[in-house]
């Protein structure tokens, strides 16, 4: 037994010695070359990925420049599993783009998702009446290259009674005659003296009695280089004094108050809190708000107007940045047809004067709106219709009112013409449809 124990001990000791002092085995052979990598995955079109979700806002008007209704914030998602709500617009991918024609193609063109959005009154300025636009509907769709929107809203007559009399705040109609210039002949008084009105000319008159009203004159005035301010300084002003020669009071054009029906859509680059206040103030000129504008503020603005843009079937593409609201690069779809300093239009229809006023309503075949650039000729004061009694209401037929459009329709271009738009007005409801490239490659646009 001792013998076996000794042998076992020796073996263990031998093993221990071998472990401690034995040599390591040789290094193995170098491995063979690895197998060739797998073939890369096929390329893909990044356009086929859905755009990123974003927020937006939109505003609508009814024949006014300052009574704004709309939606302060809506969420635009491209997630097909989401459900459209009053705050969320779900854009679906389409294989055949919706027809941009202003006719509601409904589910067949736009898919089943539809957001019914109650419209709220957005103007913070006191004293501005709500036009009570209602029944807002927004649809959206996209494909590889473009994004599409459809907006609908309904107009209604708003005519509250004030002191027993109905005051029309808003009415139902297309309202595409923006800032129509009107004119009627103011003949001399019965004694032959000039029927001149000195009121309401402060901007262009040195007259101390010109009052405080800053709207434009009711008379055609003559520039007088020697006109002086009260303190004796010379000024570039209009002298209305009945001196020799007397001011020409025969032809003067005033802007008819009111505006067009509009839809303005705002897409912020980043939806910082309160971005709408900045955007609305910058674009619509609200005076009651004074929001702070962040330095990196950027909002893309698509402005559609029944007069300004509808005839050329584009929206007017603007942007708002720290520098304020400005149009995108390119030609506008219209030009203003008014020279305020002269109270004159720039252009008239080729067949003016009296293209409309000389014809009865039944014969008024030539609509003034839109007055396109190739139909416009420089304004001439000669030959306009005159009434028998310029002081009588036009409705009595004794006074003839002449009209010219406040804008001339041109062809827009460049980044300003990025947004195709078509619209129809049907039974009080506007349907406005828009299409824009998801990537315009213009720095003045947001990209989808």
């Amino acid at each position, binding site marked *: 037994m001792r013998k076996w124990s000794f*042998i076992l001990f*020796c*073996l263990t000791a*031998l*093993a221990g010695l*071998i*472990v401690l002092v*034995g040599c*390591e*085995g*040789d*290094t*193995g052979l*170098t*491995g*063979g*070359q*690895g*197998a*060739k*990598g*797998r*073939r*890369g*995955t*096929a*390329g*893909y*079109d990044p356009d086929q990925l859905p755009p990123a979700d974003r927020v937006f806002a939109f505003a609508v008007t009814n024949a006014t420049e300052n009574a704004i209704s709309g939606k302060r914030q809506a969420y635009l998602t491209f997630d097909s599993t989401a459900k459209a709500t009053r705050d969320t617009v779900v854009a679906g991918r389409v*294989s*055949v*783009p*919706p*027809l*941009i*024609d202003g*006719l509601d193609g409904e589910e*067949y*063109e736009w898919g089943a998702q539809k957001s019914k959005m109650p419209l709220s009154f957005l103007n913070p300025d006191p004293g501005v009446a709500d036009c009570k636009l209602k029944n807002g509907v927004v649809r959206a769709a996209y*494909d*590889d*290259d*473009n994004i599409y929107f459809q907006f609908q809203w309904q107009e209604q007559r708003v005519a509250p009674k004030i002191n027993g009399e109905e005051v029309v705040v808003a009415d139902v109609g297309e309202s595409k005659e923006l800032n129509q210039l009107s004119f009627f002949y103011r003949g001399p008084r019965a004694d032959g003296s000039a029927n001149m009105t000195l009121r309401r000319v402060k901007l262009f008159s040195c007259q101390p009695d010109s009052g405080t009203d800053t709207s434009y004159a009711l008379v055609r005035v003559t520039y007088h280089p020697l006109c002086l301010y009260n303190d004796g300084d010379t000024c570039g002003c209009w002298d209305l004094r009945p001196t020799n020669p007397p001011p020409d009071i025969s032809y003067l054009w005033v802007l008819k108050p009111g505006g067009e029906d509009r839809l303005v859509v705002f897409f912020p680059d980043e939806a910082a809190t309160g971005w709408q206040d900045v955007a609305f103030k910058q674009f619509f000129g609200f005076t009651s708000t004074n929001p702070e504008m962040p330095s990196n503020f950027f909002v893309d603005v698509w402005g559609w107007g029944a007069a300004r843009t509808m005839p*050329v*079937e*584009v929206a007017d593409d603007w942007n708002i940045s720290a520098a304020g609201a400005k149009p995108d690069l390119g030609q506008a779809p219209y030009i203003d047809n008014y020279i305020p300093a002269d109270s004159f239009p720039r252009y008239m229809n*080729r*067949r003016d004067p009296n293209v409309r006023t000389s014809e009865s309503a*039944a*014969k008024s*075949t030539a609509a003034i709106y839109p007055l396109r650039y*190739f*139909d416009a*000729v420089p304004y001439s004061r000669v030959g306009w219709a005159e009434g028998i009694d310029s002081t009588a209401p036009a409705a009595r037929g004794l006074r003839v009112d002449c009209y010219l459009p406040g804008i001339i329709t041109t*062809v827009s271009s460049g980044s300003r*013409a990025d947004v*195709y738009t*078509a619209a129809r007005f049907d039974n009080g409801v506007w349907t406005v449809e828009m*299409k824009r*490239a998801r990537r315009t490659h213009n720095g003045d646009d947001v990209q989808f």
Partner: protein
Amino acid sequence: MKKLMMLILSGLVAILLLQVIGCEGNAGNRGIPGGQGDTGDPYSQPIPENRYFALAVGNNSAAAHNGAPKLYLVFDTLHANAGDTVVCRRLTGSNVPEVDGIDGGSAEWGDKFTDVVLRKAVLYDNKINTARVRAAYDQNYIYFQVKWTEVADSALGLAVAEDLYPTKWVFDSLPSTIVSGQRTEYWSRVVMGDEDRVMLMFEVKHLNWFEHDGCLVTCHAGTATTLPGTNYHSTKSAKARMDIWSWSSITSNPTGYANDKYMDGTGQIPNEFEPLGYSDGIKGDIGRATSMTNLFFVYTTSGSTRTISAYHPLYQTATDPDSIATYPLWDWQITTYTATGWRQGFAVPTFVTTVPTLSRADIISSGKFDNGTWTVEFKRLRATGNGDDTKF
């Protein structure tokens, strides 16, 4: 012996122990990495699907245009150009056909073409019985070339000519032409023809039986609402839609664009510039057209009848009256019409040429007339993103 066995056993046990607990040698060096895998396929637009389309060719006559109502446009390699099949060749590299109306032949288009048989499509046969059609596409664009030779027919008044004067206003001071109580202007609208034309038609949204009868399913398929008893071009279903690429020798060719239109079944559209007061189911894509009508008329309406009391051009050239204006009359050349100073026989175009915009300007096109043969070429984005255009 026993001792020897013990020693052997001990040795074996020692070897076993060495095997069990002895150190392994180091691993060999890492082998050389394998080669890089092949690059994946680059992204490319899917190959367009084969589809039916239609072709119509006119020689200065609306009453006589011939066509191929149903042609098959294929993008695969399984078909050959033959009969009614047009193979659209995939372009590789940077060479694309130049859309200039000049036949670049196989150098531009490859050696494939189809001589399509044309047949009478409306009242009369204009005797143009064949047209050569080529097609090609690349990543972004699709191209077509249509080439045909005109045939004279004295009976129909058809001549082999580049027809550039379809209609005109002619000043006519002869009292005998004035119908008392109807006309207060002395102008006659003289129809010289209907230009030379070619039209390509594609489905945007499915037209029932288009794959059977081609564009014939849209001929006079509308049910008139404005004027009972008449009908018009229309799809039978309001939801169906057909894209129309309309090239014409004078109202579109000078602009470098085809007039992009579409047809659906939504009915007649009121149009105050049409003498009948409406247009049919063919509508212009969104945007400004390649021309506008130079027409002014005053009318009264009684029921469905219009009585025109004044009828004359809306525009004239700056040198009028006292010249004979010719096509094209561009919008920057026009001035307002004046009713005085005209002499008998002087004429003014009935269309004013304009530069198209938006979706109306999707199709770049050019045609050239050479020794009796028209070569008209088209180029358009495969996907314009407009609902009034087909997508390839």
